[in-house]
């Protein structure tokens, strides 16, 4: 595990968010994982208050917390169909990035000419 203080604080934020999740989501996250979060988080750190009226991406949370939440989604929340969809999206993004590279490259060549 990333042992940086930032990551541990991210875990504290995630613990707080899990606390506020509706039970149907909360129950999908394994107890083992929730325990690990509680064990490894920075207990001295006080995260910003969770605002029930805001969406998750509007909450004042760190990049590390967002990464952990992303991982929770893929591991525990996404359905098989959603996972397949993600894999397709991943390929599509990779394809676009590749195209972008090619386009840049060909433009540069053209300029040299």
């Amino acid at each position, binding site marked *: 595990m990333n042992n940086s203080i930032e990551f541990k604080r991210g875990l504290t934020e995630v613990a707080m968010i899990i606390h506020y999740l509706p039970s*149907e989501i909360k129950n999908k996250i394994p107890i083992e994982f929730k325990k690990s979060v509680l064990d490894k988080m920075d207990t001295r750190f006080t995260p910003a208050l969770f605002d029930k009226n805001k969406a998750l991406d509007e909450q004042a949370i760190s990049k590390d917390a967002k*990464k952990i939440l*992303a991982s929770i989604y893929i591991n525990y929340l996404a359905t098989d169909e959603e996972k397949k969809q993600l894999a397709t999206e991943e390929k599509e993004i990779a394809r676009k990035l590749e195209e972008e590279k090619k386009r840049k490259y060909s433009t540069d060549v053209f300029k040299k000419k």
Partner: protein
Amino acid sequence: MTNIIIDDTILQKINVKEMEKIMEKENTTQKRINEIFDDENIYEELRENIKNSILDELYYSELKDTHFYKAPEVLDQFVDVFIEDILYDNGFKADLMDLNKLRKLDYTPTEMYLFRRNSSGNKPKIDISILFKIEKGERLTPEEEGIYREYEQQTLERDRNNHLAFKALGGDNLNDDEKIRLNSYLDSLISEEEALKRLEEENKPKIKALRKKMKDKYFNKERLSKMPERLCNISDPFDLEKFEKANKIFKGVNGNTEFISIDVPNNTESGYDFEVLSEYIIIVQNMSAYYSKGDTNEHYAHTLWIYIPPRENEYPEGTHLSDLIHKRNMNKWTKEFKGFVDDMMEGGAKIADILKITDSILGEKVENRGKE
């Protein structure tokens, strides 16, 4: 104590001329919509569906362990008030909740208070144009300043009462002073209640006429056209065929129904928070008449409930509304989580890398699992 306006001025504030103009523009669609709303059976269905929605909303709210959720008779009263409130276009009707009845049903003062609060009855009132002026940084007249100071004072007092009520609900013991204050507040609400009831009785004929006019006003083309685009994509409110279908859907109380309603601007304050339902019950929040100026209808934000058939095959027949809510609730949250995955992937992260984060948090156990 809140300062509810209990004289005729509320009714006078409604711009009848404006409404009459709207009525003149009545077209076939308008008539058809009125027919739907004039049908008593439909009304019953509407009532039942609203009740179910509120039950579900309460289930996900802090009130789920209170009598509000458990006592259907109280909910019945609430639904009645809610529907009346929608139709009357007047916040004062929401204040007609019978607190004495609630007391007889043996609710705790805190629960009564919260229930009352939920029906938007205890908000301080102010002409909204004053708030707009302040927002824009415009100078208030001395008279307006006085009104605003009083409003601030009332808001402060309301917040203190909220705090007290929540404190009691949270199981904290109130000291004697606090108990006296909370009880006196509840008593004051009951006095208001009685005054409002008298007002309603005195104004019955006027209210009846107003009710008809308001019904027409809600469904005028101009307002319907202000629907957010995404809702327009779901259903064209002027498509008579769809309204025909909606009419049939009214008949099915099994929850196999989708709601939409219509948004209007300046939805700045609301007594009803149906966040969980908002994806498919878009409540154009009810804004009290005493928050608005009679001749500026754009300050109003009203609630409409329009039912449209569910998207084809979206839910099997017999699906209960609570299941729909559950499904939508799940969708809402998972969508938000997925947003983080999308961000990471767009930044070049691979799914495999994202997966590793939870594994690394689980640590040793996962490593062992891999070895097995």
